[in-house]
């Protein structure tokens, strides 16, 4: 066979490069356009509807003790909501436990309002008109930390232990698909379909991700909290069902929230 001429090779190489760059161009256009879509959504976040409900719920007298949650101590003193979320999860002396926001709310519903654990946690995640009190309360409480710098301390031994266990769970591979959290969130610049995957093992990624939950999910038309984020990631990891406010959920939240320290909290957000 005749060897291809140098000019033919050059032409083929140029063609290949053109095809490749056209592909890359199309891909970057796609990303740009998706970015524009996300931008357009920012204006008018239905999370506000949940925030309004949450504020009313916080002040409403409920439960066997007919009490509001206004005396609930989120870590900065009874009733102090401003900036509280940016320091959670944290260890609480009265429960001798590390608690994230939802866990603490359950604690207050039991101790202040007189609900049982089962009553308080009847509906962790809402669906349509069957709303979750936690999603409303979390929307409002977290909105009171907007702009506050994340500062989750590991001063207490139980906080350090929670962080350490959370880190282990983050890399734990299991289930039918061998997935760990790290499978999708352990490298820079990856995406699933067209969704960017934050690298949660690095500060920038953890900050970007953690500070934008809770979020209004347009795909669901619901306001979702960080507990939900973990719950649904594990479903898609093909793990069994994560129990609401379980020790593992709080440990993982501690790991991720602490990694986000130093960033300004910026939720409730709006996401796909």
């Amino acid at each position, binding site marked *: 066979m005749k060897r291809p001429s140098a000019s033919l090779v050059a032409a083929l190489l140029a063609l290949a490069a053109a095809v490749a760059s056209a592909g890359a161009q199309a891909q970057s256009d796609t990303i740009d356009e998706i970015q524009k879509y996300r931008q357009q959504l920012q204006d008018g976040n239905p999370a506000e509807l949940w925030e*309004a409900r949450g504020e009313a719920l916080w002040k409403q007298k409920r439960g066997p003790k007919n009490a509001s949650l206004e005396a609930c101590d989120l870590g900065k003193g009874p009733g102090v909501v401003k900036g509280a979320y940016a320091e959670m999860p944290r260890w609480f002396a009265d429960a001798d436990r590390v608690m994230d926001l939802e866990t603490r709310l359950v604690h207050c519903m039991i101790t202040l309002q007189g609900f049982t654990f089962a009553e308080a946690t009847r509906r962790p995640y809402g669906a349509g008109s069957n709303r979750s009190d936690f999603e409303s309360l979390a929307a409002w409480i977290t909105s009171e930390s907007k702009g506050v710098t994340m500062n989750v301390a590991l001063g207490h031994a139980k906080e350090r232990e929670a962080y350490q266990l959370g880190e282990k769970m983050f890399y734990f591979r299991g289930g039918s698909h061998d997935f760990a959290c790290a499978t999708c969130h352990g490298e820079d610049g990856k995406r699933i379909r067209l969704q960017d995957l934050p690298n949660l093992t690095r500060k920038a990624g953890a900050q970007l991700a953690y500070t934008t939950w809770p979020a209004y999910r347009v795909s669901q038309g619901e306001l979702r909290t960080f507990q939900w984020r973990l719950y649904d990631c594990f479903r898609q990891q093909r793990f069994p069902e994560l129990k609401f406010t379980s020790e593992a959920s709080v440990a993982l939240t501690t790991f991720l929230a602490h990694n986000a320290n130093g960033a300004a909290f910026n939720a409730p957000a709006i996401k796909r």
Partner: protein
Amino acid sequence: MADPMRIRIAEKDGLVNVRILMSHEMETGQRKDSSGALVPAHFIRNVVATYQGRTVLSAQWGTAVAKNPFLEFSFKGGKKGEKVIVTWEDNKGDKRTDEATIS
């Protein structure tokens, strides 16, 4: 009863910008629930905004408007401190009226 709307109204150089978020499922009537039964259509059909008794926008909506609807428009001649009143009515006859002050 339906939850209140969130209405943000700002006046600048005589132009009043109105942004409304409504709490509504906007069911298409084509979605099935977990048991496989069709969820009946339930959606806002009419929206009217008034300023000092005059209609500044009226809308007819179908099921394609997204859940928890967002609406933005602007009108001329509104004054700071005055109110805009917004009403919606859905296909089941449920209604909601809220007002907000121009800031």
